[in-house]
């Protein structure tokens, strides 16, 4: 079945079965492999993408439910060579080790800062609780989210 998806601001065509999870459409049909498979159960957050600005687990979303929705993946966060402030903060703080969880972490954090520009530590923890970093870089990730919040809040970025 042919689907037209709005991914990272452009229309993409995918001829797939309606129940195919968005994760596999992104990775295998649209070659956007930044979004990762971690569990297929919506428990680890590695497959997080934004759907109309809301962080969702793409492994649990049938592609048929995505018609007319704006999908943003890790590949869609930067503007040309300019990284999204959350990406830049993760890079600067080195908030990763193996970095397999990193795209999902960054997408989740970007969604948080969209709605809560200056989150408390409790808000970061509660928002990010569904994202697992098995290497345990949580402290640095929290620091990176804070740094990104500060960057986004600075007059330069207004």
């Amino acid at each position, binding site marked *: 079945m042919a689907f037209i998806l709005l991914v990272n601001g452009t229309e993409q065509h995918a001829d797939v079965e309606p129940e195919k999870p968005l994760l596999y459409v992104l990775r*295998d049909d649209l070659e956007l492999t930044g979004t990762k*498979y971690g569990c297929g159960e919506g428990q680890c957050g590695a497959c997080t993408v934004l759907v109309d600005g809301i962080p969702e687990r793409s492994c649990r979303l049938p592609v048929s439910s995505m018609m007319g929705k704006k999908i943003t993946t890790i590949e869609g966060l930067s503007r040309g060579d300019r990284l999204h402030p959350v990406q830049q903060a993760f890079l600067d703080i080195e908030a990763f080790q193996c970095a*397999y969880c990193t795209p999902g972490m960054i997408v989740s954090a970007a969604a948080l800062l969209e709605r809560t520009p200056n989150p408390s530590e409790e808000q970061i923890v509660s928002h990010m609780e569904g994202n697992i970093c098995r*290497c345990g870089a949580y402290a640095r990730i929290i620091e990176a989210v804070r740094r990104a919040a500060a960057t986004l809040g600075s007059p330069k970025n207004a």
Partner: protein
Amino acid sequence: MRDSGCGLGAVGSGMNDSEVQDSEFRQHDSISRLPHPFNFDRRGFFKVLGGGLLVCIAARHAISQESGAAVHHDHEFPKTLDSWLHISENGEVTAFTGKVEVGQNVRTSLAQQVAEELRVPLTSVRLIMGDTELTPYDMGTFGSRTTPQMGMQLRKVSASARAVLIQMTAERWAADSASLTAEDGKVRNPKANRSITYAELVHGQKLSKVIADDPELIPAKDWKIAGSSAPKTNARDFVTGAHQYTSDIRLPGMLHGKIVRPNAFHAKLISCDTSQAEKIPGVSVVRDGDFIGVSAADVLTADRAAQAIRAQWDAPPQISDRELFDHLRKPASDKDDDTEQYVLGSVEQSRTQAAKTLKQSYTVAYIAHTPLEPRAAVAEWKDGKLTVWTGTQRPFAVSEELAQAFHLPSENVRVIVPDTGSAYGGKHTGEAAVEAARLAKASGKPVKLIWSREEEFTWAYFRPAGVIDVSSGAKADGSLVFWEFDNYNSGPAAMRTPYEVANQRITFHPSDAPLRQGSYRSLAAAANHFARESHMDELAHELRIDPLEFRVKNLKDDRLRAVFQAASEKFRWGKHKNSIGTGFGIAGGFEKGGYIATCAEVSVEHGGVKVVRVIQAFDCGAVVNPQGLENQIAGAIMQGLGGALFEAIRFENGRIVNPHLAEYRVPRFSDLPHIEVVLVDRKDQRSMGAGETPLTGIAPAVANAIFGAAGVRLRSMPLVPSGLPGHAA
């Protein structure tokens, strides 16, 4: 029985390099294999023997092995520079190593060491890693050996190359080589104000000179590039999603694979009907012995085909987790006696000298590595040659596994390891590689296989469970008299005590393991530290001596004393006393060249345990990359917290009961304590690895802190899988 030898007094230097390597190898290579006894046509085997040779396959071993038995003694490092290092015409330096990057950041720290010794900018160095066709043989990335072994090797290679470049310049300029210096990718004559770049000197030619045995290395105190924080190599690719892990690789015409797994461990296939799956268009089905797998153009079709296969299995009755610890105490039925023992003085004769004696048992559960990138492989056959991209810690061993499984000469197998989504000791074996290759062989197309999370939780191997009995005695003044330590199944790593005890008997007893078990970050050091440091704490309380004071009183090792001091000072140990609901614990030890001391503060409320604050001091000699090291240590604490508090694999009659992340809890953001890492940078000491030992202090420190807060002594890891015993969490 293996005698662990003498020299415990010098825990830090008791074993030489090759002994350490042997002992590591035995423990890391004892993982049983999933059965893949393929029966396909072997006639092609002889046709390809003697086929085309590949570059840099120095001393590759073609003899097939049983269960990955050690063949490492036959592999020596290549002796000439060109196997390790290349300087291109534009001055780009490429170093080659069989080690792999799995998040421990050695791609960066090894490059720093190359740049330092070769005297080139860090940005001009790149590493080719874990490619069996391009890199020298390597036993594997485990045992915290990358820094001491490969770091040293690449330093020697680079220092030798530097000397060769200086010599080449001296000849070219008819100058005295002593008057020349090397820096920033150039050889200079400072007096004549003359310089020449390495690129001009080498002209893209091979550096065929032999590596010097004892080249002049730059001492750590003079390091400019090593010893300072360097950003992770290619870090930008990880924040943009551009990095291609194995699971992201895509080849033209590639299919997706799915394996039909048995319904229990040790199950035999009784019957199998693949007809429905074969009717699905585009599906390739393989049935080879007990191996059943499918491949199709997309994941969904492969899943559907696998589900359409009707397989009947017969599994023998197997023990369940309730019976685990009684079972482990029974002696192993295996004829090979892997018992390991260390004896000093006489435990029996010294018992009466003790004013206080104590006897306790400690247990550790099976736990899973749970790497976020599950096992994955992409396999491609071309002209009888097999290439597999896979996330493994042992590319050369996996290459041998493949050669054995497919009856190929080892030259016809190439394994490439893209920087991988973590491993933690869990990716030593090549199951996914063998399975993907089998499917690719059948379909005639490249196949990608990614294990599901459930497969990862079930068909990978586990950190061994164990029972540890400790019996000890001390004089009233707190000096230890005897120490008896019996470890059943969990492993011998770090089972010796670093404390001064005249009478000891320390024994590792192998058991018949009910689950497939193998390496896990720090091996048994986490379990042995838990038992020893919990027991030391109990003894200190019995003697009414402060737990830190008690430890230091029985310690001579200066470096271990130094980390205890560093951690306790930063923690302000003794400043706050245990009170109801708040407790403080300390633990420490030595393993793999690293000295560790950990202090933990916990709060206990309504039976719920929260680790509030952790201070950990670590000394692994001269620090190569402080920022990378701090990241490793903080991460190890966090991962160690999972095994300490709540991680446990539950199993019943050959099946894993909790093979999902919803049922097997790993540490999340809300489990994060305030962590401070104290790096004790010993520039006068050899740089050692740091991936593992930092995980060993947290469990006993937390257990001891829980005792302080609640007066409850917990002797089983995980300590509080459902809150404090006797409370509803």
